[in-house]
Every structure is written in C-alpha cells, then in structure tokens.
C-alpha cells in the first residue's frame, strides 16, 4: 500500500484507516506521517514523562479476543498512543481477560523513533474518537474440564492418603529397588 495514499483526516472513514500491520511492515514509509488508526484500548491510561499513554491494539482480536472464545490468529499488534489530555476521559473500557476495551479511532503522527520520548516507538494523537464502547466479557464454565480436574484431584488426593496410611503403619518396611 502506498503510504501517501493512506494519509488520513480526523474522523476518517474505513478507507482512510491505516492498519498497524502495514505500518510495522514498512515503518520507514510511514515514519513522521499523519495517519488514522483504529483499535482496542488496552490495560489502562498510564501517566509517564508528563504525558498520558494508552496501548492500542489493531489486530484480529479487536473483533473477537481469545478471552471471548475467538480463534488464535497470531500475536497482538500494538502501539503506544500519547493522548491529548482533553480526550483521555473519553475511554471507559480497557481490554483485558474480563473486559472488551473501547474501540477507538486515533488521528495523529506515527514516530518509529520518537526523540521527544527517549527513542520509543509511539503515536502522537491529535484527536481521539470512540467508535464502539467496550463491555464486560462473560466466561462460561467449561464443564467437562471442571469435572475432569475435580476427578483428577480426588484421585490424586485419595492415592496420596492411602500411601500415607500404608507407610505410616507401625513396623511397615518399604521394599525398594
């Protein structure tokens, strides 16, 4: 994809979005350019170096994470986003095992090596828009696995108790190899 063709504007449509996978595959083509990226907010907002940061993931798991029962489709594709202070409160849900994070659309500058932040790779957002709100993820119990684990624990516990009973009998002498 031509980097110039992907230069986006605030509140960009689907066609103006740039995927992080494309950016990471050819970072020199995108370095220092203004882009619009979309992805899931992860973890929490971290305050550091006088800025507010959020991790943004743009990978198949933004649609359905493994925690929601989605298929394994490779490793996360993530970037650190420096948020404008006034927009930080827009994000309410942050992705983790129990939570689907807000899907946010961020317009700003991609820095493969950011001199302002000690050489880190980051994305300086000039605007943030919440595309869809996150939610709590429910995890249905895997009944067969739960039953199997209880049975295995019971078996191991019973055998250990029998072993202890046998070897602690007075006068018992173990035969060995």
């Amino acid at each position: 994809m031509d980097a110039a063709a992907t230069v986006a504007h605030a509140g960009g449509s689907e066609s103006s979005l740039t995927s992080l996978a494309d950016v990471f595959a050819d970072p020199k083509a995108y370095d220092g350019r203004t882009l619009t990226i979309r992805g899931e907010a992860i973890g929490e907002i971290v305050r550091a170096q006088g800025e507010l940061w959020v991790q943004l993931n743009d990978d198949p798991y933004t649609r359905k994470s493994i925690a929601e029962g989605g298929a394994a489709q490779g490793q996360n594709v993530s970037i650190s986003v420096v948020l404008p202070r006034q927009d930080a409160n827009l994000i309410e849900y942050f992705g983790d095992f129990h939570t689907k994070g807000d899907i946010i659309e961020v317009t700003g500058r991609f820095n493969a090596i950011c001199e302002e932040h000690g050489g880190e790779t980051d994305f300086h957002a000039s605007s943030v828009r919440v595309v869809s709100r996150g939610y709590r993820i429910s995890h249905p119990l895997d009944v067969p696995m739960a039953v199997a684990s209880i049975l295995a624990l019971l078996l191991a516990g019973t055998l250990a108790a029998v072993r202890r009973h046998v070897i602690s009998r007075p006068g018992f002498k173990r035969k060995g190899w």
Partner: protein
Amino acid sequence: MLLRPSKKDYAAILHYSGQIVAGFGITMLLPLATAFAYREWNMASAFALAMSTCFLFWLVTDRFFYTKRELTWFTGMLVVTLSWALAVTFGAIPFRLSGFYASFVDATFDVMSGFTTTGLTLIQDLDHAPYSLHMWRQGLQFLGGQGIIVLALTFLVRSLRGAVKVYVGEAREEKLVPSVRSTAVAIWVVSLTYLALGTIVLMIINLWSRMALDRAFLHALWISMTAWGTGGYAPSSLSTAYYHNVAAEFVIVCLMILGAINFVIHQAVWYGQRRELIQNFELRTFSAVVLFTFTLTYLGLGRSDAFGSLASRFRMALFHLISAQTDTGFMSIPSFALKHYWGDFATMALIIAMSIGGLACSTAGGIKAMRVGLAIKGIVLEVRKIMSPERGVVYEYYHHVRQHILKDNQVKMVGLIALAYVSTYLSGALVGLVYGFPLVDSLFESVSATANVGLTIGITSPALPVFMKMFYILQMWVGRLEFTAVFVLAGFLVALARGR
C-alpha cells in the same frame, strides 16, 4: 566400555524424577490461587488438572520405582534431563488448555522458554490473557532462574540421595554453603529478597503512573520476577515499553544486573565480603565485557543515524545492551525498530553480548563471563610459558571469593563448552537460513534462543515452521543445562543401543 543402565538405574531415575515433578506441581498453587482470586474458573480447572497430573506421576513412580539407592553422576544427570522434560510437558498443560496457544508444541515452546529464562514466546493475544496465565508464565521464569532442581532440593533433599549430582547437572557448579540443601535455601533467600525489593519499588512507580492498586502490584511482581530471573516475559505485548518510565527502566536494569551476578558473589557480599565486588575476577570480566559491548552498541546506533539525540541513543543502547548481556530479553521497542533502525553494527554488538551472557551460577545464560575470562587467562598462560625459561614454573591466578590457580583441565573445559555454544549458535543460524531468513536475523534469533535471551528480531512467531520451533526448544534446553546433562542423555541412548 559402555554399560547399559540396569533396572535399578531406571528405578532411581524414575523415582527421583517423580519427586522433582511433585515439587514442581506444588508451584502451580500460585497460579491456581490467582485464578480463584480473579474468578478465572476455567484456568483454575486447567491448573488443578495439571497439578493433579504431576502428583499422580509422582504417586505412580513412588509406588512402582521406590528406591533408597544413591544417585550416581550418570543417573543424576539423567534425572535432570528427564525432570526437565517432564516439567516442560506437564507445565504446558494449562497453557494449552487456556486456548491462548495454537498447539501443544507452542505451549511446550513457551514453558521451555520460561524455564530456561529465555523469553521468546508464541502466546497469542497476550493482552487478553487471564491473570493466572500471566502468573504462571512469569513464575516459570522466576523458578527457572533459580532452577527447578534447586526448587526440588529445597523441599525434598532429605529423601534425595546424591543430591549434589542433580544440582551440578542443572549447570550449577558452585555451592554457596557446604550442604546442597542449605545452598538451595540460600539461593531462594537471595532471590526472594530481591524479588520483594523490586516489587515494592516498581509498585510505587506504577501507582505514581496511576495504575490501579492490584494491577500496580501484579505488574511490579511479574516484571520483578522476570527481571531478576533474567527471563524477559512481560504481561503486555509492548513488553517494558508499556510503562514509558525511565525510573522503572532503571530499576529493571538494576534487577537484571543483580540477576546475572553469581549467587556465590551475592552470598559473599551479604556476609560482609564487600571487597569481592572489586576483586572478583568474574565480576571484573563481566564489567569489562559490558563496557566493551555497550561501547559497540552505542557507536553502532550512532552509525545508523536512527537516534538524533545522545540521550535517547544512550537510553536505548543501555537498556537493550543490559537486557542482551544479562540474557533477559526485555524490549522497550518493537522488533521492527530493531530490524529496520538499529543497523547491522549495533545488532552484531547485541549478538556478541547475548552470546557471552552473564556470570556463572546465576539466573543468566550464555557462555558466561567466567569462561571468557578463563579463556583469556589460558591464552596468557600459554604465551608466558613459551616466553619463560624451560625449567620455570608459570602459574596464572584468579580471585573468586578466594585465590585459585588456573588449571589445564579448566581451560580445556572452557574451550569445549564455548565450542559447544558456538556450534549451537551456528546450527540454529543455518536452520534459519534454510527456511529463508536473512543471515544476521537467523544468527540473532539462534543466539537469542541458545543463550536464553529472548530478544527477537521478528523471526519467532506462531507462524514459525514446526521444525524451527522444535529446534529452538532444543537450543534453549541445551543452552540452559550447559550441554553436560544433555550429552549424558546422548550417551545414555548410545548405551541403550550398543552398551553391555
């Protein structure tokens, strides 16, 4: 003449391996408790199942292979290799059942990477992984840093006869105190102390960064576990870049260096021998190597023109060089930045640092500073012998807690082990080349696996061909056990085929 192992040998190997596996199973209580605390019921089932499997294995081996026979060097080494293989297999059960690994090979890869404190990972969707899974991943690296045999010796030494042979088999050549169990306990005391200190300091930094109390604590604990254990696993796909904090990086750098220091030196300093920090030959060699490799990395980054300011160049060079030299593997940049911006010169400097590694009898991997120092002294000794009168007696000394005379067989062993490491580095690079990866990338990843580092230039991913995954697993294993125990396994297989 090769002797085929007797039935009694098999019984001893299985009996003691069963005990070590049981000790390993106990460690799953920590992630199990985490799963209960965070209501991760399916993970609780997975850990309960894996733990039960460990205990059942122990009960079966205890019932059918019970022995009071003392371990020989041969059987001791085989106990180490078998225990590692079993622990990796059983440890992979919760990984596979979690759904975050595409196959059992991938799960096994990550357990081996964890135990060997490597840090290369094939986990998928790490950022949505349950806390109990993080606890297990990070905990594996903390346990692996000390050694699973050390862990078992702490609990089981009263019934493990010939414990020193399995202790040495796990690449721990030095005892801190005369008894093996006391040594194991001393290693745990040192490790838990630094873990507690690291956790407290990083937690304060995390709270300052506005993280919630429990996440601030857990992240601090997990990063301390893998920084001290020189492992490199992190609870975020951004690795340590998640924190964006120079103070946190400084603490992590300190923990990595402490983790890479010989437990014997820790012990000596704890008991008041502070001059050891200045006099110790291995520590001095390590410092010289770090200075050398840091200079190369810094100059390399200068040549690449990627970093405009000296401060950012210094920060990036220092953090990643220490991460490489201590064989930890934390990255505060994505792997594409390493590949596209660092340039071959700085990348080669990291390869040199990774291949040498930290100090012996520490949580670090690689050839080890002690061997590099002894090799240099060996060369100096040979030159001095040639230049001295023929009847003259020439010695080389080195200070490691006390004065030692360099012996010929030491130099020979150093040469053999270094040769084994270099051969393994090159073999892995060759495999990478066969699969079409560039030379520098292949060499980087191969050294990273063998020296138990975990830095990646982007080769290691779930899409990696299965053979390469298996080869990296083998490289991590032989690198961590420093070859001897694995060579004995090869000898065992030969004895099975050709022995009497």
